[in-house]
């Protein structure tokens, strides 16, 4: 009886160790550059879809603790996730997306970035803004450090 108990404890301990090791191995700085580029490309792909849908909740998952926003409605600066959520929500409400795609993507280096064109309509007027989004590795994920809509 007692032995079984200790075996269970040991298995749990090993599981934690494995899990810990897995997490550590997944740190971006442990990946090779190809893997990192691929991960960054995937993140940009996801961000593109989220912007097309105007999905701020989805986008906020990628925001870092302090994200630099520079928006065409005059909002410029570093914002916390909470602030960025509502600042972006307001932006997407006023500048309703018609279409968005990244034209240029650079997934290499410590700060991958992508630029694109954001077509929107606001108060019945159609227009377009140039978008610049850059990422930075944080733990196991790429996080957005900058979003510029100009």
């Amino acid at each position, binding site marked *: 009886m007692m032995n079984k108990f200790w075996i269970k404890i040991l298995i749990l301990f090993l599981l934690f160790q494995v899990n810990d090791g897995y997490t550590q191995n997944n740190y971006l700085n442990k990946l090779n550059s190809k893997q990192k580029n691929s991960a960054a490309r995937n993140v940009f792909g996801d961000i593109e879809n989220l912007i097309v849908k105007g999905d701020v909740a989805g986008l906020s998952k990628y925001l870092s603790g302090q994200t630099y926003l520079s928006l065409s409605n005059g909002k410029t600066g570093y914002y916390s996730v909470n*602030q960025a959520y509502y600042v972006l929500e307001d932006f997407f409400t006023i500048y309703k997306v018609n279409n968005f795609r990244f034209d240029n993507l650079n997934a290499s280096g410590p700060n991958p970035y992508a630029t694109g064109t954001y077509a929107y309509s606001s108060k019945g007027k159609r227009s377009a803004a140039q978008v610049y989004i850059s990422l930075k590795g944080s733990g196991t994920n790429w996080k957005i450090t900058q979003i510029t809509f100009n």
Partner: protein
Amino acid sequence: MWKKSLKKLKDDRKYFAIVFFILVLLFLTAIINPLIINNIKKNWSAKLSEKISSIEKESIDAYKGKENTLLTVFGELKTKLHKNLSPEHTSYKNIVEIVNDPIYDDYSIEILAPNGRMIGWNKNIVIPEEEVFPLDYPLGETYFYNSDLASYLSIVDTVSIESDQFYLIFNKIVEKKYNLRSSYFNNVSFTNELNERFYTSLEVEYTPVAGVTRDNRKYSFEILNNKNHKIGLITFVKPTFNSNIESIQSTTAKIQAILIILIFVFIFLGFYKDYKKIKNKYIRAIIFIVLCIAARIILFISSFPTIFIKNEIIDPAYFSSTWGWGVVKSPLEFLITNLFLVLISLKLFSLIRHSVRNDAEYRKDKILIIIVKSIVSLALLFVILMLSRGLNASIKSIIFDSTLRYFKEPELIPNTLVLLMNFNILAFSFSILLLMIGLLIIINGLLIPKDEHRNKFLIGEFILLLAAGIFFVIYQRNPLTTVLINSILIVLVYAITIKIISDYKIFYNYVYIALAASIISITLLNYYNSQLERESLKTTALEITRANEGYFLYLINQTLDEASRNKYYKQYFYRSRTNFDAAAFKIWSGSLLQSENITSSIQLYNNLLEELGSFSVGTNRKLDIKEFDTSRTIDEKIVGTIPLKENETETSIFSGIIPIYDNTIKIGYIKADIEYNLNHLWGSNIPDFIKTSEPPINSVLDFKEIKIFELRDNKLLQAYGNIYPSKEQIEPIVNAKYSQDNEAWIKLNLNGEDYTAYLMKEDLNGSSRIFSVLYKEKQFTWNLFNFFKLFIIHSLFIIVLFILLFAIKIRSVKYSFRTQLLVTFLIISIIPIILLAIYNRQVVSQRSQTTIANELNERVNYVERHVNHQLQVHPERDILEAFDNAGKELGVSFEIFENTNQIYNSDVQYEKAGLFNFKLLPEVHYELNYLNYRDYLSKEKIESFPYNAYYKKVNFNGNNYVLSVNDVFNKIYLPFSPAEVDIFLFGVYSFAVIIIILLSTIMANRFSKPVRKLTRATGSIAHGDFNIQIENEEKGEFKDLIDSFNLMTRELKKNEAELAALERENAWKEMARQVAHEIKNPLTPMKLAMQQLMASYREKSDKFDIIFERISATILNQIENLSQIASEFSNFARMPNYKLEVVDLIPIIKDVVNLFTEEQIRINYSASLSSAKCEADSSQLRRIFINLLRNSIQAGATKINIKIYIDNLFYYVIFEDDGKGIEEQHQSRIFESNFTTKEKGMGLGLKLAKRFLEGINGDICLDKSSFKGTTFQIKIPVLEEK
């Protein structure tokens, strides 16, 4: 049934009819909306024509409004000039005064003499005097004047004085042609005004030659001036069906939001009377809280009032939290949530205050009850600690989720938004503290006995609370605060709780809570601000890495693409008189280069690659066009990094050029450069007025104080700030222990100063790069400074609360001795403090001005000496060259004026771009040239950026000039800015005022206490209560006075007893005499009758029977008389002489309660009646009530509840106390005569009360009595209405 329903509707239920009506309206808006849309769709063509006409009419009206204002002000100015410039009044001073009147600050005024020379002008010169003639438009006609950077609505006319005609030019800006992302930028744009108004794009052309466009997409119409001549054109994109729908839907949403709010309000009004009728205070409280929550939810769902507001208070950038699905997503939403939170907290606090007894009785409680009480107390303690955590989390969010920097606001009294957020902080903290105190009161009620052990229990409770607070912080995984701050919170909360428990009645308890809320919230704000500052080091490192090659190339690309697409920029290359420097500035101002505060420049070239003009900020580097391969033709955009010279490892340069085409013909080039150097971070080399006002890290830190080191392969590459560390000094950075994310925090001591450093390591193409961001650790005095900065604002709110409470209370309080003392203390102490503060402020302000003047004067002297020296050594040197040398060698920025015209400016690019005036300011001209002063310090503005300019008359080579130096381009660092000094001064003084208010209240209370006691006691005596004795804790005259009073009372009581005894004796004597007299009367006939009967019997009279009959009848009659006399005496003795009249019980009870306000007892009076009229003797009633209250106090009660209600034609007055109760064996005897358990009691009070009440058909009975208290019930018949 219908009648019944209708009757109900006439009462409160009428509100439900309104609700029904609004519901119908709401329903209609939902139905009508699609119908309207359908209708518009069907008749779109007609609707479109209507829309176009409407836009045209409204736009013209908007223009005419501007024109009419201009003409009116112009007319007034002309009249004023005509009147004041008649020969006998003419003086230059008059002209200067009139045109520089602040009412004309928004206008540009120029006065030209008949010979065309400018003789008068105000600060804003628009049209250079040489460009006035020939006139563009006839005199008296309005027109648009286009300068390089703006368009003006202008008018030129003449003013005739005597025989001379002076020309008056009057302009008002209508459109700025550049745009700066800066808080100092005053944007003026008629185009934007129109675009804001309509759901379409409008464009205004300020030229009469603009051609009309009318096609399927666009529509234009002319702007006609006051003489019906075309001066401009407005073109707009015809509104689309979709934009129209959007507009309708937006309006409908607003209407629906209002309707929903109205429904809620009227439903509440409908149920209001029912709510008031609920007697159970707990149910009432629950309903109140539910209603508050419902109201908040409805306001949130309907986006009310956010939907109607368009300013910064709804901007989530200033504060937003995702908490509660967004009920605090902006400062305004936070305010609304806070107001409801305050209401709920006040309700709960009031409920607790009126419900909790503070007299736990362990000796009489069973063990199980004690255990339950302890468990409940522990649970409540946990809730208190969680509330403290909630407070911490919220304040942290206020700091971290906001771009507002509470401790860096430059103004003493900040803008509305910061005031609003400070109010929010105070209100939220107040609510949380109120709840914490309420819960502590409950714990006190459960655990703290009211006996000789009370103090020991209180100390034990405090230690337990403090220990729990400490453990709560220590054992949290992510503690939000420190042990010290949490302990301060607990001490404050506990101290106020004890204060409140000792005296519930003090209205100003709320002020104490607000004060504690302010102290704790500011302490937390300061603490989290320091955390944010630390966190900002990380953000700074991010900011440095954000500025990377990819981003700079994107900025160049963006700037060039935008510029090449802009049709106005293309026109620059056609025009003959284009100011290409101004054009370059406009391109720069609208680009990301400006908003990113980057050292950058824009150059314009013709198609032969010859430079036409340029604008640069932060650099004088002229990047040659040859950096690009000009051997091949540049047919498309080229962007790239420019290779640097070997010694320039610290700087990176990015550049791009784009050809501009008109159709296929190349007409010129636009080039953009960026120069990046760590030392120029956040535009430290760019003048403040032209850059975004805050650095991108939101000015958390004073970026002048930040030090940054960049290490490449463990060697220092470059440093930002005034420290260049040695190899030894960077060793801790290299050897730091880096985390998985390649970051580390260390403490560094550099040159004897302690720094906190954030380190970030990166792999960069095989080499390692470390950014180290350092910030000097703050001293305690800074925390004190920060505290006062916010406390000054909070104290304003607290003073308003104090005044409000005072105003509310003043209605019920007479102008008492205490109030007089308080007011006197306040006046005597506050006035000198205010005067001292004003005086100190003036002194500091004067010193700051003097320092600025001295600093600028010093620079002027350097330049003057330098130029003179050059001219002495090199007499042949051109004076402009000498100026240039002086500027470059001294690093001083200055201007030189000859007469009134500028001849040299060391920052020529701003002048060339048209940002600064080329003419000497009129008041400077007047002071130096007319009044012959040597120098003059002027306060000026560029956009809304204020600055100081120092002018001095100088002489070079025998010619007079005016040399000017300002603090826009020559930064002057004052040890403390005037605003900072204001904050410190007024912070300290406001703190002093608060302390004075508190001390004055305490002292006024203390000094007036014996007087108040005596006043109340005298009142009691006046109402017949001679048992009163005042506890004497005083010294000196007051002690003697109270002793004398007590002696007097005792003597009065003794005299009263003696008098009563004498009266009784006299009464008995009188009664005996009367009784004897009355008895004698029947006795005499009885005696005579008996004697007659006896004689008749002895004489054996034959009429004996008849006599016997008669005598018996007489005796019986007399006996009957005696019986009647006895009854009358008995009646007389039973029924004293009461003065029965119609009285109202409510004021009588209130009067009596007021007599006990100084006693150590809490009397809660509650009544559901506004009046309670009955027939009784008011003095008897008062005596009964006083007697009952006095009995309760003597029974050791701390709290007495008095209730009055009506039931079945009787008023019931309930006296419920928490005294020690009446022992069971005594309960049946309390209404007996001469029964008392008191040492000095007579045992008559309750007997007399019962006799009086029975006399008026009422009653008094003992409802219940136990060791927990006693309840008496008094029953008085309701006055019958005749």
